[in-house]
């Protein structure tokens, strides 16, 4: 199991969600975040609104997947979130030792989807 964290441009969220639905990845956690990359929040073409100095508004997706879904998920996010401009974001892939569904106490691969 892997835990995939993707930081994307806020206006790409719709496209990314649609791309993930197409490969049958429906479970995710989404949050508004602020961040910056190498360019220290350089102004983008459509001026991502800057906050707290050089931080830009981004959206963070967190998705837990079984091994079979790791590569398709990465591909779906990269393709749908890419504009080719600075600030498209990053995808982080982490090992995920365990998952517990609170309602049923199921664990591991049963609990993930």
């Amino acid at each position, binding site marked *: 199991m892997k835990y995939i964290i993707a930081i994307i441009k806020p*206006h790409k969220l*719709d496209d990314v969600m649609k791309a993930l639905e197409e490969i049958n990845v429906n479970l995710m956690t989404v949050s508004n975040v*602020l961040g910056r990359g190498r360019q220290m929040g350089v102004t983008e073409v*459509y*001026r991502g*609104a800057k*906050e*707290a100095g050089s931080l830009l*508004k981004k959206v963070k997706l967190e998705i837990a997947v079984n091994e079979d879904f790791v590569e398709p998920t990465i591909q779906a996010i990269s393709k749908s979130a890419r504009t080719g401009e600075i600030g498209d974001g990053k995808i982080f892939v982490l090992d995920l030792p365990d998952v517990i569904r609170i309602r049923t106490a199921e664990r591991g691969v049963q609990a993930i989807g």
Partner: protein
Amino acid sequence: MNSGDTAWVLISSALVLLMTLPGLAFFYGGLVRRKNVLSILMQCLIILCVITLQWVLYGYSLTFSPDAFKGIIGGLDWAGLRNVGGQPNADYAATIPHYAFMIFQCMFAVITPALIIGTYAERIKFSAFLAFTVLWATFVYNPLGHWVWGTGGWLRELGALDFAGGIVVHTSSGISALVLALLIGRRIGYDRRTFTPHNLPFTVLGGALLWFGWFGFNAGSALAANDLAANAFVTTTVATSAAGLTWAVIEWIQHKAPTALGAVSGAVAGLVAITPACGFVNPMNAIFIGMIASGLCYVAIAKVKSFFKYDDSLDVFGIHGVGGIWGTLATGLFAEKAVNEAGADGLLFGNPGLFLTQCMLVAVTIAFAAAMTWALFKLVDVLLCVRVAKTEEIVGLDLTQHSESAYTLVD
């Protein structure tokens, strides 16, 4: 000259200003998504600035100055406020300064195009919005105002009744909004999901400010602090209460819950519908006008709009168009001379003639507003391209048109 009348009309003018900003601005602003709220506030603010200048430079003259051509348009005698001053003009209001009448009417000219912004919200280019607004004020509002309210205006000569602007303000903006919604097209994502209002408390706040300001709009239209103003004041708030309650009850029956958005929409529908009638009908009939207004507007928004799938984003046609038409026709039904000697009796008081005149008034307004809006849209579209680019629409108008965003993520 009467100081009481003058004071009331000046206060009413300020109340009508309050309807556009912040009333309508927050009513609409709460209904759009977070990324577009500033564009709505900005459009209301700039309309207030631009149309005020248009009005004093030539709009007021085209609308109200002595007839220049067969009841179609006023002349330029009053352009730049020449011959408009502190003395009363007996043709319109004999007891208040001409300036007071002029600035009261100015606020009506301001709010009418502001109502329209709800239809093309979240996808119009700011420059195109600005050009369209000035053209629409000049080629739709000014002539129509002259026809219905100006001395020598041809609809006024026929005996058509519109106390405070059910036709000139609401039907004209509502019909134009429907045409614009069809021309500009649906927002991106319309088929995939519903667009949730980002701040309903703003919408209720804005709706409440509209209600408050509407006392100036309707009771102020008596142009005097007298019994007629009191009648308009009472009918306005009675019809609005009936309409707000009715909408909530309809939702309660249909969806098992009365919503705040529904109740405030109903209240605005009631305000719209009583506008042409408020100085001609009695308060009991105002209850009826308000209740029917909510029923009709609810059907227009919940059933007709979703059936035909036009994206009148904030329901300008559904509330102002439908409510304005109903109110104008209702004036033909419920008007009575016992309320206003200067008015006429309606169908229910033995005078079918007035009802037919009101029907014609509605038909003429629909045809005129629709045709002119179509032509003006096409003109602006060729010159400026009305709609923003796809990416700009997705990013939002606040950032792409105004380089600002309304909300920060951290303190």
